[in-house]
């Protein structure tokens, strides 16, 4: 086939650039971009820190919830809250804006491998997730009397960072369907009620009974239970079930994101 021969020919004279370099630079600059974007970096780190300081460190500090210190219990739940925010805004917010306002198309016209763009958004979100959890952990140990073995702390951080992936997938799905201007508002309308119903603000057992029933459907509830389990606070259900639900949720979201990608290609790229 003449076309194939031609493209092979041009590939010889123009070697393909190093894919690892592209992925690295894409992730590095996505991280820098977000770090400098105060609307993102200040709010996704600031809100969990503020809530945790207020409710976990300043108030209720002598109390216990289900046998654990409030400061330890809320470390897991506000850690989950922080990871959700970093992931949803880091993927959905960025994708909706860049797709809706034409920037993604400039990238698409370049030889950038499309997956580099998405991997960069996910890696960036995971780094911010790790930063939020570490910061809360540091605050808890320094000012909240939180004590735990290093292994337990490590497990908490790893659980929450891994648990950010389903929310990154959810963010990609949302990013394809939200408009560039309405995205932040709509993300908040999903993020905040979901956090409340999943027991991230008020411990699960204090929630009204009917909300407890709904919470089981929320991926945030399952991640919070895994985080509570990591720090040895009273958790519900089995870890295997929680992971299964999160993996299933992530796959469904990726499927929706794929549909969204095709849908917008139908509009923008065809």
């Amino acid at each position, binding site marked *: 086939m003449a076309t194939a021969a031609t493209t092979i020919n041009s590939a010889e004279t123009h070697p*393909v650039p190093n894919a690892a370099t592209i992925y690295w630079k894409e992730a590095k600059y996505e991280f820098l971009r977000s770090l400098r974007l105060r609307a993102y970096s200040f709010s996704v780190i600031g809100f969990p820190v503020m809530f945790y300081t207020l409710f976990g460190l300043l108030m209720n500090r002598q109390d216990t919830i289900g046998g654990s210190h409030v400061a330890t219990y809320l470390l897991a739940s506000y850690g989950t809250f922080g990871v959700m925010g970093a992931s949803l805004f880091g993927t959905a917010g960025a994708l909706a804006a860049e797709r809706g306002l034409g920037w993604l198309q400039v990238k698409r*016209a370049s030889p950038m491998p499309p997956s580099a763009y998405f991997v960069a958004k996910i890696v960036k979100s995971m780094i911010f997730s790790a930063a939020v959890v570490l910061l809360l952990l540091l605050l808890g140990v320094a000012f909240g009397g939180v004590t735990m073995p290093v292994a337990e702390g490590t497990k908490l951080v790893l659980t929450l960072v891994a648990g950010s992936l389903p929310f990154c997938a959810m963010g990609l799905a949302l990013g394809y369907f939200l408009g560039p201007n309405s995205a932040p508002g709509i993300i908040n309308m999903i993020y905040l009620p979901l956090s409340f119903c999943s027991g991230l603000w008020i411990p699960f057992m204090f929630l009204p009974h009917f909300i407890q029933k709904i919470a089981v459907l929320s991926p945030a509830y399952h991640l919070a239970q895994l985080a509570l389990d990591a720090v040895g606070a009273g958790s519900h259900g089995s870890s295997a079930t929680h992971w299964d639900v999160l993996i299933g949720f992530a796959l469904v979201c990726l499927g929706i994101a794929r549909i969204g990608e095709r849908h917008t290609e139908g509009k923008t790229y065809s």
Partner: protein
Amino acid sequence: MITAVETTAEYVENNASRSAAAVARLRGVSKNYGEVQALRNVDFAVRAGELVALLGPNGAGKTTAVKLFLGLASPAAGTVNVFGGNPTHSQVRTRIGAMLQVATVPETLRVREHIELFSSYYPNPLPLAETLALAGLEDVKNRLFGELSGGQRQRTLFALALCGDPDLLFLDEPTVGLDVEARRLLWQEIRKLVARGKTLLLTTHYLEEADALADRVAVINRGEIIAEGTPSEIKAKTGGRKIRCISRLDVETVRRLPGVVGIEYDREAMEIRVTSAEPVLREMLMLDPGLSGLEVASAGLEEAFLALTAEDNRAASAAL
């Protein structure tokens, strides 16, 4: 039958020579967005080493043509061929640079960082310093994109198109919204690329821009190419020069003179559009010794363009 890829390779090694070999081609391409017919059966080629301007009013189909060339859109009918292949192939994309109309660019990255990132996509990018120099961005390389002026923003997008040292560049309305000074500055940078032997397709609705930059102009209106040629050929098509004078000759006499395309009155003066001024003037001066207030000017591309699109629009409404 719809085939996006052509199998006949018109692969061109030497793009420095201004030969007629096409490096990118639309053949019988139609494209519609729902009810709106953006392009109708368009045949259009970009030849190696030339700067061709696609000139047309807003909504004529210019951006659609560029998107088809870039593989960002697929044709409803016809074929798109770039460097002998499908523009979505990465081997083809590494030889192409594009400057698109974009509402926003990430504002918290520096000019230098944007260029470094885009350079990494290409196998043989230009050194950063050379890209900055070509786009005239040396002084602002450490500024965040959000801190740039309109002209600097456009030049940054221009830098992203050229940083990979591509053979073929697509510039979609590169100077839209810029003031005169910023526009002329970008023109200078575009000419530097032409001097380096690059092939460029530029879309514009500024007639002056096509006239100032292009080797060849294709006029597009309502999704169809209605005229094609060098800027002077396009001008000649609707009367190359304009004679203005005060004469007692009547309209009918003047109209019968060879090479007269049109006559209009501006107050007491007669404005005659002609393909060539000298034969008409010779006759007129002989017939009317009292002819006064004589001025001869070349008809601008603007007039040619207005005449061409007006004719085309009249034909379209007559057909309805």
